């Protein structure tokens, strides 16, 4: 091999290496098996699986006398109460709650009120419309919720070895009926293990 061809070859290798080092971004299916997994945080698929577990458990109990509507033939109404984040990190509870609400809504068995909620109406304008209708004597349209959803998210860390850490995220939810009895309760735990450096806290 001549000196010139060796130089060209080296240059080509260097260029291909640099090309390969360029950062690439790509879309991935959030429900697919290729989404990112972090030990130190709750990933999008963790919220999806947790919500799915709760929804399946709730729907499996609909019609058993445990979860029924106060108005026959109509879906039950659920209000969102306090769901406490007991972990050390910022967690947007809506990532869990919204999925549960959407799936229950789509099931046609349980709908969510946006005018009765812990800490005030989620939709103030809808609440205002209700109040205006009530004041104008056009009938009270505010149906009280049959159930309230409350719960907590907790986290626990454990060390498996010098380099491997385990993080568990515990989702606990309850549905309470009008008499104040928790008619449905469930817990789902996500446990992940990874390198210590992968833990962000």
């Amino acid at each position, binding site marked *: 091999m001549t000196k010139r061809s060796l130089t060209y070859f080296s240059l080509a290798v260097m260029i291909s290496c640099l090309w390969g080092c360029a950062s690439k971004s790509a879309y991935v299916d959030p429900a697919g*098996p290729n989404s990112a997994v972090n030990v130190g945080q709750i990933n999008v698929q963790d919220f999806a699986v947790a919500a799915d577990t709760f929804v399946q458990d709730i729907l499996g109990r609909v*019609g058993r006398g445990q979860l029924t509507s106060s108005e026959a033939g109509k879906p039950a109404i659920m209000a969102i109460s306090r769901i406490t984040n007991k972990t050390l990190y910022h967690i947007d509870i809506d990532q869990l709650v919204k999925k549960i609400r959407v799936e229950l809504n789509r099931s046609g068995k349980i709908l969510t009120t946006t005018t009765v909620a812990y800490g005030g109406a989620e939709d103030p304008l809808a609440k205002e419309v209700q109040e205006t209708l009530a004041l104008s004597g056009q009938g009270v349209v505010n149906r009280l919720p049959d159930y309230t959803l409350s719960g907590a998210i907790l986290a626990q860390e454990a060390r498996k070895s010098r380099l491997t850490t385990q993080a568990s995220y515990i989702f606990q939810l309850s549905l309470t009926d009008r008499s104040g009895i928790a008619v449905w309760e469930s817990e789902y735990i996500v446990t992940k293990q990874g390198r210590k450096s992968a833990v962000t806290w």
Partner: protein
Amino acid sequence: MNPFLHILCLTLCSFFLFGCKSVNTIKPSDTLSKKAFIEDVRVVTDPFLQSRAKVLGINETLTEGGFLKIQVELENLTPTTKHVEYLFEWFDKDGNLIPSTTRAYRVRELLGRETIFLQAVSPTDQASDFRLKMIRARR
């Protein structure tokens, strides 16, 4: 045989045997529960997974609320721990996929020779069909 080689072979064998912590399962010979097993069609694209995790049966029931409930019995054919990821998809009577915001692959661990059950309830009472997808878990 060289004594050193003999000891090495024995050590390797003992390591192998210690690594195989399989599950012993005990169940009643006459089960009172009656399972409604259904016929299934399997499309296998990963023979490696098929040779390790075997679907023993699928039973289907309808909940009181009219939701389809599926239970799949899965057996780990190997003496070592395996992980699978699975996903249920639901279809209405016209064969249309029922969309879900909670759709995600779930991970299950199967100890050696262990049999587990994968359960799922359909997201609506309109579901009349389902599909189960299984892949090897990322490790």
